[in-house]
């Protein structure tokens, strides 16, 4: 964080084969007899911003939830920052420390204040002194532009503010990768922008991001790559302009026509 990474530098990082942040190889997953992820192959480079879109029930959320093992995959390999996800709990702890997640329903801890929400993990997981954790939390709360709410409880904030706190909470662990699971889907229209602005700012800092979203404007603005999923498969992927203006498959054409009509 902090150091500004130029666009040129970033682009080169994406193009040269630096150690990938996330690798999914032949990942399969079933819920009972339902095949929710089919042979997923995806490599995300350090600093790359990937937007995942697709109709509901297409496995987008399940895929990114596999990356920090909120869901377990049953076949294939997932490697995060060089560590493979297995049943080894220590590997899992190491990965979860490096991977921040933002949920559709915010999932702030309602019994803790905003500040406590942000300092909890640094204090207990990173063993950071309380004072230092609070300074760090205030720094990130300032960056998401709500430092004045620090003493309030989540229930006293608007949806957009809560989601920005959730982003700050994840950032307080200083993650290398951020996962966003439909971060704006539960928000009223007038609050979507404030959350997207925060995410754009994060992208400009060079954070590796995977974002499940239907916000095509956001995808065009920040994504290096858009991945389109349908029925558990990655159907198409590519640069946002190319993908949106020149879809190759009928499924993507159908999806694009539906979301454009919706807007």
């Amino acid at each position: 964080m902090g150091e500004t990474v130029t666009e040129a530098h970033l682009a080169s990082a994406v193009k040269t084969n630096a150690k990938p942040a996330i690798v999914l190889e032949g990942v399969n997953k079933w819920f009972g007899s339902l095949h929710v992820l089919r042979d997923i192959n995806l490599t995300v480079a350090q600093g790359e911003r990937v937007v995942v879109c697709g109709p509901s029930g297409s496995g987008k959320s399940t895929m990114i939830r596999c990356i920090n093992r909120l869901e377990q995959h049953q076949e294939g390999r997932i490697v995060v920052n060089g560590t493979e996800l297995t049943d080894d709990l220590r590997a899992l702890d190491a990965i979860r420390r490096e991977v921040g997640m933002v949920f559709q329903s915010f999932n702030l801890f309602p019994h803790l204040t905003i500040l406590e929400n942000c300092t909890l993990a640094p204090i207990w997981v990173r063993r950071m002194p309380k004072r230092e954790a609070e300074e760090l939390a205030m720094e990130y709360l300032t960056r998401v532009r709500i430092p004045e709410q620090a003493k309030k409880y989540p229930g006293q904030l608007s949806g957009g503010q809560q989601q920005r706190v959730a982003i700050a909470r994840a950032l307080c662990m200083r993650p290398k990768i951020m996962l966003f699971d439909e971060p704006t889907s539960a928000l009223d229209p007038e609050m979507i922008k404030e959350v997207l602005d925060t995410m754009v700012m994060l992208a400009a800092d060079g954070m590796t991001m995977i974002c499940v979203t239907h916000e095509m404007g956001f995808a065009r603005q920040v994504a290096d790559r858009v991945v389109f999923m349908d029925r558990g498969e990655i159907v198409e992927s590519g640069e946002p302009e190319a993908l949106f203006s020149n879809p190759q498959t009928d499924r993507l054409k159908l999806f694009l026509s539906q979301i454009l009509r919706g807007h």
Partner: protein
Amino acid sequence: MSDLTLTSPASGVPEAAPRTAPMRAVGPIAWMRQNLFGSWWSTAVTLVLAYLIVRWTIGFVEWAFANAIWSVPYQGNQPQTQICRDMKGVGACWAVVAEKHRFILFGTYPFEEHWRPALVCLLFVGLYVFSAIRRFWNWILVPVWVVTLTVIGILMWGGVFGLPYVPQERWGGLPITLILSTFGLALAFPLAILVALGRRSRMPAIKMLCVLYVELIRGVPLISLLFMASVMFPLFLPEGMNIDKLLRAQVAITLFAGAYLAEVVRAGLQALPRGQYEAAEALGLSYWQKTGLIILPQALRLVIPPLVNTFIGFFKDTSLVLIIGIFDLLTAGKTAIVEPAWQGFGVEVYVTVGAIYLVFCFAMSKYSQDLERELNRHRRR
């Protein structure tokens, strides 16, 4: 789209100044007109109930205070209870309570040592009050409880510091009720939390063990558990070994309360949205950190009303130990009126014993309401 939402509603139209509610809609007279005399039917009910309440109140005050007999004359050592019998049904005979209060409170504990169980009761109350203050909800509670309970043990048993030894068989009354319920709930509560967590464990052996415990204990009446503890359990012990009867009853009550509390705690765990677990996991918290910092603080707040309900239930259920011959408050009250001179004055004694139970239970209930309001502040907007 965004333009629409940004323009303030009714721009151009001057906003009406807020008005206060009309006087006829608020205030006590309006409230009474609305709630007590809304129709001829509710007026009739109001009048009938008012008449009954006034009549019964007057009747009770006459019986309990105006016509009550507070003491009886003595002939030598014999109380002359004839005047009480003459007033039976008209006035209460509080003389029986005045005469027997020490027996009701402390049972067969040696009379000249009664200051010890009295001090024990005060220590218990002090311990409750101290533990109820949220400022002290930290590690200081542990030494305070250990020291207080040790002092209570020393006071009850004696045998050290020049205090004469009093065997457990002679303990009785209020201290027994407080000992059984305090130890019972203080041990059952942590047990219940572990069992509730165990029932949701992914490890099948732990889960089965917890289910088995809850279902077995819950499926048996407390009385039969107490019988088992007092009659059957000693049969399994080697010759000459004897575990204190009170301790056996204590274990039975603790296990029983644990099973019930576990289900209450589990209800709280079920009520939490999955997102809370996931957010805690995604932040890298370990199982015990997640449970201790995120899950339990929220789950227990949710179940304060049923928890206290169970607490109050078990406080009163300790009186069931009378069937295995332990002298708790209720048994002591019952025994106090066995003496021929005082036979027939059960109402006065049971009203008194009931009042003592009521004080403790009402305090618990009131405290839980405050606690609930205080701890759920975050849910208010």
